[in-house]
C-alpha cells in the first residue's frame, strides 16, 4: 500500500520482463503505459492532489468562503488551532467514538459471522438480515434510530421499559450514535469475516477432529489464528472510517453539535468553521492537521504489519 510495498511487488515483474527479453512486446506494448493511466491521473490530480496542495496553501491564509481577498498570515491558523479547546474537544469526540466502535464492531462481526457460518439452514436469510442495514444510506439509518430513540414517542424506550434521554443528554448521546453505527455498519465487517471463515480449508478441522480436539479447541487453535489477518484488516478499516465520523452524528442530532456539544466530531467542527463561520483558511489548517492524523494511523498500521510479517519469517 505504499511506495515501498508497491516497489517490492513491481520489482520482480520488471526483472522478469527484462529476462524474457521479448523485444516485440516491449516495443509494442509498454509504450502505452502513460495512456492507460492518464484518465485516472487527470481525475486524481484534479480532485485529490490539487485540493491537498490548495488546502496547504489556504491553511496559511485568512481566506473566507467567498473566495476573494485572502492574505498570507503564516502559521497563525495552526497556532490558533493548537490552542483551540473546541477543536481538541471535537477530536476527542471522534477518538472516543472510534475507541468504542472499533472493538465492538470487530467482536460483533466475528460473532455474527460464526453464527451465520454454522447455521446450516436458510443461510441466505441470516446474511440478508445482518447485512441489510449496511445498504441503507447513512442519513436514512440515522433517521430511523433518531425516531426510535426520541424520548416519549420512540419505540426503543417503550419496548424495553426505559426512559433514557438518548439523544438529549450528553452522557447518552454518543452511546446512541455508537449503537446506531454498530447496527448500520457491522454488516460490512460481518461479510469479510464470513468470507474468511468460508476460506479456511475444511481439512484442517477434519485433521483436528481426528486428533481429538473439541469445538472450543478447534476455534482457538484453527479459526482464530486463521482469522488474524482479517481481524487486523477490519480493525484498520473501521478505525479509519470511525475517525471520519460525520453523517450519522449530524443526522441524529438535527445537524447540531449534540447536547452540550457532546457529539460534535472533528469533521463537523471543521465544516462549521468553513461553512458556518466562513473561515476557509482556518478550516483548511484543521483539514491538514486531520490529514496528518489519518496518515499517521494508516502508516502505523503498515509498520505494525511489516514488523509482524518480518517477525513471522
Amino acid at each position, binding site marked *: 500500500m505504499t511506495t515501498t510495498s508497491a516497489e517490492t511487488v513491481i520489482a520482480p515483474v520488471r526483472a522478469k520482463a527484462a529476462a524474457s527479453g521479448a523485444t516485440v512486446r516491449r516495443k509494442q506494448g509498454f509504450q502505452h503505459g502513460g495512456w492507460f493511466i492518464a484518465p485516472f491521473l487527470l481525475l486524481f490530480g484534479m480532485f485529490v492532489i490539487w485540493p491537498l496542495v490548495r488546502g496547504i496553501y489556504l491553511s496559511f491564509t485568512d481566506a473566507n*468562503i*467567498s473566495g476573494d481577498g485572502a492574505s498570507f498570515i503564516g502559521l497563525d491558523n495552526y497556532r490558533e488551532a493548537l490552542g483551540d479547546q473546541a477543536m481538541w474537544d471535537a477530536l476527542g469526540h471522534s477518538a472516543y467514538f472510534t475507541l468504542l466502535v472499533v472493538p465492538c464492531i470487530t467482536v460483533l462481526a466475528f460473532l455474527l459471522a460464526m453464527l451465520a457460518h454454522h447455521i446450516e439452514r436458510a443461510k441466505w436469510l441470516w446474511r440478508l438480515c445482518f447485512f441489510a442495514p449496511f445498504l441503507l444510506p447513512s442519513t436514512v439509518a440515522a433517521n430511523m434510530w433518531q425516531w426510535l430513540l426520541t424520548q416519549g414517542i420512540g419505540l426503543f424506550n417503550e419496548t424495553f421499559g426505559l426512559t433514557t434521554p438518548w439523544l438529549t443528554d450528553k452522557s447518552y448521546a454518543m452511546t446512541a450514535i455508537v449503537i446506531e453505527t454498530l447496527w448500520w455498519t457491522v454488516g460490512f465487517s460481518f461479510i469479510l469475516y464470513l468470507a474468511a471463515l468460508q476460506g479456511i480449508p475444511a481439512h484442517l478441522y477434519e485433521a483436528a477432529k481426528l486428533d481429538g480436539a473439541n469445538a472450543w479447541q478447534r476455534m482457538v487453535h484453527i479459526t482464530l489464528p486463521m482469522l488474524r489477518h482479517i481481524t487486523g484488516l477490519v480493525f484498520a478499516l473501521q478505525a479509519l472510517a470511525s475517525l471520519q465520523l460525520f453523517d450519522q452524528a449530524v443526522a441524529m442530532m438535527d*445537524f447540531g453539535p449534540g447536547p452540550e456539544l457532546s457529539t460534535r466530531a472533528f469533521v463537523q467542527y471543521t465544516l462549521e468553521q468553513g461553512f458556518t463561520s466562513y473561515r476557509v483558511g482556518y478550516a483548511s489548517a484543521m483539514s491538514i492537521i486531520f490529514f496528518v492524523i489519518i496518515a499517521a494511523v494508516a502508516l502505523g498500521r503498515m509498520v505494525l504489519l511489516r514488523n509482524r510479517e518480518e517477525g513471522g519469517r
Partner: protein
Amino acid sequence: MGIPPLNRRQVLAGLGGAAVAGSLGFATLGTGADALASGADVRVRYWNLFSGGDGANMIAMLDAFRAEHPGIAVKDSTLQWGNPFYTKLAMAAAGDRAPELGVMHLGRVAGFSPGRLLDPWDEALLAKYGVRKADYNPVLWNRGVIDGKLYALPLDIHVQLCFYRKDVLKKADLLGDDGRMIQVTSTDQWFDVLKKARKVQKKGLQTIGLWTNDQNFQWWFFVAFYTQLGGQWFNDDTPANTEVLFDADKATQVLEFFRQHVTDGYVIPGAPTGEQFINGAPFTWEGNWSVPVFSGAKLDYGATPLPPVFGKPATHAESHSFVLPHQANRGGATNEAAHQLAAYIVQHAQQWAAGGHIPAYTPTLSTAAYKKLTPQNEYASAMDHQATEPKVWFAGSTGVLAQDLGPMVVSSTMGSAKPASVAQRMKKELAKLLASKNPMDGTTAAQGGAVA
C-alpha cells in the same frame, strides 16, 4: 440451451449501456429533473426555511401568487432550518449558484456580508409593486439598511411565547375571568402556578416544555429574561462595542431560574416539547410559529408573552426578511420577478399572520381581520417589549453568538455546570467575540464590521 447466459448478459449490458447513456444526457443538461418539466417564461427560485405551519401558509401564499401571475414560475425549496440553511445560502452565493430570492433572519443580515453574499434591493422596483418605506415601522425597516442600501425586506416579527392549555389550567383554577392565564410577576408566583398545574395534569407527562437541551431556544429564553432584568451586552456610546457590559450576577439569576424548573421536576429533560403539549402537558415555551400546529391539533389553549417574572416584561423577538442572494448577473426579468414576488408576499401576509407571526407590513396590522385572530390578539403586546441580541456581526439567529453561548446556557440548565461559573464563562466568551474579526471583511465589532 447455451444461449441463455449469453442472452442475459447482452440484455444486462444493453440495460447498463442505456442507463449510462441516459444518465450522461441528464447530467449534461445539468438542470435537474424538475427544471425539465417547467415551461414558464420566468423562473424564480426561492429558498426558505419555513416548515410546519409556516410552510403550509407560505405555500398557500405562493399558490395565490402563481394563480395571479401565470407567466412566472416559482420554484420554492425548503431547507432544514438552522445552520444548513445559512451554510447553503452562503455557499450558493459564493459559488455564484444562488437562487433569485431567499429568506433570512434580520439579525443575521449584518454578518452575512451584504454586498458580497447579498445584493441590495431596488427600492424603486419594490415601490412599483406597492411596497414603500412608509408602510413600515421605521426602526424595523432600518435594521435591514446597511451602508445606506436596503439589504433585507422584513416580512414579520416573531416572538417567544408561553403556551398554556386552558383545559388543564381551568381545573387548577389558574384562569382569570377573561378565560386567560392569571398574571404572574415574580418567580415565586410562577413556580406556584407550575405546582398547581402539576397537581391536575395528566401523569407521565412533563408540566412545562422548556427546550432544556436545545441551545437555540435556551439562548432565546436567556436573552428574554436577561433583558427583563435590564441587563446589557456591550457599550453603545461612541466608540461603540469596545467594552463588555455583561452583568454576570443578573445572568446567574436567569440561569438559576431555568435550572429550578429541572431540579423541581417540572421538566422531563429531552422530551419533545410540542408532542408533550399536544398529549396534555399544561405549559410549553415555544416560538409563535407553533400556533398553527396547536390550533391544527384542536387544542383549547392560549399564549402569552414569556411571563415577566423579573418585573419588566420582555420577550425574545426576531424577524424573517427577504434577501437577494448574490448573483453575478443579477438583473433583468428574473430579478424583477423576485422583487414582485417578495412585494406580493409582504402585502398578502394576512395568511402569514395565521401562522402566529406579526406582519411587518403595517397596513395589514390595522385590518379588522387581523385584530380578530386568536390567540394572536393575546400576545400582540409582546411587540412593545422586544428583547433582541446586540447589533454585532456575530449575532443573529443560529449565529456565532448563539452557537457559542447557547450550549453554555444548556449546560447550566441541565445541571452539568454551576450557573455562577457559566455566567462568568459567558462574559469571557463575549469579550473574546468582541475582539474577534469578522472573517468576511476582517473587522471587529468595534471597527464597525458590516453594521451601519
